[in-house]
């Protein structure tokens, strides 16, 4: 079989060539790197370039990392991973997938099942998009609870790609820290403070002085809500709960570190 590639532009036109991977069903679920395509290809003297000539590079993983699977399963949020049979109902019902095509719960769970960190790493930027609406968990026929699996995914990301998380997900991490500090440290959420600190962290202080924000703040000062936010104190005796929660989290961290050999 003689295969030759020739430059279409020099050979004078020919059939129109499709966009890369254009005719693949559910194209959005496949990364560009995984598509093999020959636009101008001649086999045994026949020009076969065109729509049929698209191949998806095999994604079969043979190196299962069972320890990774067990690690996910041990967390409260990822405890149901062993139930997943990859039917795809989670991705089909996902609120976020239509907005961010690369957000694909089914694929994330598959990669976590296999322990394929190399693949997972490619999705650091979208892994935090889950809105926690639980449509996936509602419709999952095996009650895997994909919505909480996305929390497990966040744990994986933080543990194995801490540097990338720090740079690429700086804002997400900072907002999460504001929440956690307030919930554990103060026992209650101060919504005004939460909003202003988050805006500051994302460098949007100017926006807070904008017409819309100013209008809302003015309204709340006028009708007294702003002051009720300021007045909201801590629960009594919160310090004992705070200490107990912190100790628990510290223990959790120590176990995790000793397992990771840190």
């Amino acid at each position, binding site marked *: 079989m003689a295969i030759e590639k020739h430059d279409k532009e020099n050979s004078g036109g020919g059939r129109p060539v499709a966009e890369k991977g254009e005719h693949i069903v559910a194209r959005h679920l496949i990364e560009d790197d995984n598509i093999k395509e020959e636009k101008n290809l001649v086999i045994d003297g026949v020009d076969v370039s065109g729509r049929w000539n698209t191949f998806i590079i095999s994604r079969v993983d043979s190196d299962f990392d069972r320890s990774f699977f067990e690690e996910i399963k041990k967390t*409260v949020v990822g405890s149901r991973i062993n139930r997943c049979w990859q039917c795809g109902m989670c991705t089909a019902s996902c609120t976020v997938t239509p907005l961010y095509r690369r957000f694909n719960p089914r694929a994330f769970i598959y990669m976590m099942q296999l322990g394929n960190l190399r693949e997972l790493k490619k999705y650091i930027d979208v892994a*935090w998009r889950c*809105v*926690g*609406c639980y449509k996936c968990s*509602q419709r999952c026929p095996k009650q895997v609870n994909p919505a909480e699996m996305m929390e497990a995914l*966040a744990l994986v990301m933080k543990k194995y790609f801490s540097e990338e998380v720090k740079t690429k997900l700086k804002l997400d991490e900072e907002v999460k820290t504001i929440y956690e500090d307030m919930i554990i440290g103060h026992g209650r959420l101060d919504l005004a403070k939460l909003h202003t600190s988050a805006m500051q962290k994302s460098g949007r202080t100017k926006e807070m002085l904008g017409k819309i924000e100013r209008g809302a703040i003015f309204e709340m000062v006028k009708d007294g809500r702003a002051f009720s936010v300021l007045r909201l104190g801590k*629960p009594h005796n919160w310090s004992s709960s705070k200490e*107990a929660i912190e100790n*628990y989290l510290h223990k959790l961290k120590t176990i995790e570190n000793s397992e990771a050999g840190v």
Partner: protein
Amino acid sequence: MDKLKENQAAYYPGCALLTIDRAYNNSSKLVSKKMGIELVEIPDYNCCGIGEMKSKGAASMYLPLRNMMIAKNRLGSKNLVMACSVCYHEFSRSINRVKENQNELTAVNEIFKEAGEFKEEYIPDGEARHILEFLYNEKGVEEVKKNVVKPLKGLKVAPYYGCLYSRPSMYTFTDKKPKMDNSERPRFMHEFLEALGAETVFYGNEVQCCGGRNVVQDEETSFTLCSQTISKAKKAGADVIALICPKCAGALDVNQPKIVEKFGKDSELPIVYLTQLMALAFGFSKKEAEFSDMISEPLKVLNEKGF
């Protein structure tokens, strides 16, 4: 604090309802009282974790369960009523998880023991109840009809349930237990609104998510989802959207000026809480129902319609 009487229920206000969402808090109390149940706030409540602590194992479950312990110890009530869907989710998630997993229950009880605030251990025998489901099942549609003095004739309402009121059924038991709402097509709010004399519109986004959880970090997603919901409701002819969750209010109401700026006038529609409409129909004034608290200005349309 005294134990509850028969016509009282333990109530968890959460962080939003005592501050910026006081309209929801106060109207819920007014409406419940009118229907024959007094909501009694539990003292010393703490934050439910608002979905941000889920990856922290037992710590995330300790947060809501501490409030369940307060309800039981101080008010003698196993159950706790709440108006926020996020709180409702966090409570029912924690209760069900410790019910079904002994290890997690033990871990939570270890935190309780260390904090030393309560003498006995936590036993998962109570339930968290969303105010809509609570009023529907305890008092029913007939009780609503009985109390209506000013029917909302001619008002078209788009009922918006959002996500966590009915999902996931593994925690909410919608579809699974008798007397619970449907997960995909909830009806309780529809029935309440119709009992008030209002007309409900079908617009297809009743159980869609508002993206409220990521609103700070990922405005784009939230705004797009909100804009879809508002414009669909508007197209279906709704005068207002009725909510049952303060987080939805944060996304749909507080952010509406920004959403309109981005997506245009199609995304402009007054937002109210279900309980505010109930209060209005029960004869309370617009001031008592605190409609002026809403950023999206429902007062205009209510005045136009003559309420």
